[in-house]
């Protein structure tokens, strides 16, 4: 992917902010949908123009964030159901090729998966990282 590619992030919380900065460093085009100007103000200066203020599920917000032209949509709001709804909208209404939703509750990942939604669960991934490190420590005596 390059600067011609557009990734839309719905949600301007810690994950959205860090992800926006990372994708920008990777040279990708980024739009970040924020519920308020206060949240958008937390974006780094280089991404000030990337903010789209509004309800991410409102059609007007979707249009302003250029979802129709997006190559990827990542839903990272603080609400699992909202993220799932955004992912479904991204796939079904806008046919975005790469769509994923963050889920805070690991128990929901399977249910959303059954709906065809790709999920990223911070808690499940965090548990995996801890587990890998403990097992590596037990095997090698070194904690990474």
């Amino acid at each position, binding site marked *: *992917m390059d600067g011609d590619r557009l*990734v839309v992030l719905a949600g301007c919380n*810690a*994950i959205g902010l*860090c*992800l926006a900065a*990372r*994708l920008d460093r*990777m040279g990708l085009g980024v739009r970040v949908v924020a519920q308020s100007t206060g949240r958008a103000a937390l974006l780094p200066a280089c991404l000030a123009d990337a903010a789209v203020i509004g309800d991410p599920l409102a059609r007007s917000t979707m249009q302003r964030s250029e979802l129709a032209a997006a190559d*990827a949509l*990542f839903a*990272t709001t603080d609400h699992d159901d909202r993220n799932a709804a955004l992912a479904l909208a991204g*796939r079904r209404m806008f046919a975005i*090729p*790469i*769509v*994923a939703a*963050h889920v805070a509750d*690991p128990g929901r*990942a*399977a249910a959303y*998966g*059954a*709906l*065809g*939604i*790709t*999920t*990223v*669960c*911070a*808690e*499940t*991934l*965090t*548990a995996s*990282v*801890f*587990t890998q*490190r*403990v*097992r590596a*420590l*037990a*095997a090698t*005596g070194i*904690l*990474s």
Partner: protein
Amino acid sequence: MKTLAILIVGCGRLGSHLANLMSADGHGVVVVDRDENAMSRLSSEVFSGYRVVGDAAEPAVLRRARIEHTNLVITTTDDDNTNLMVAIVARRVFGVSHVMARVYDPAREPMYRELGIATVCPTLVAVDGFCALLSRATGAAGGAV
């Protein structure tokens, strides 16, 4: 594999998950949580460790949890300040050789590192997860990361 003596602070979803898994792996595990009800997350089938109800910020509670005989402390509470404080006490006061902490605020990671505490940040782990999806550019429906 070396059998470890592991002290896990916090018996929420993450702490109990790790406790059950590490106990099943054959390690000695002690879990500390202020809330006795949280201990119900520990599996009666696979968890064969010890439960200590108390505030891990109190050294007396950590001693009761046998911290002086522990190889590895993992702090998993929902509060970064608690995780940091307990991790520092484990490392500096009790000299635990290996300490890991969950830290929600990515900005705190460098400070933890300077103190010799390994960290896992759910925010950055999630960012890695999304970036991995992007780099694979799967677009395949229904997968979980």
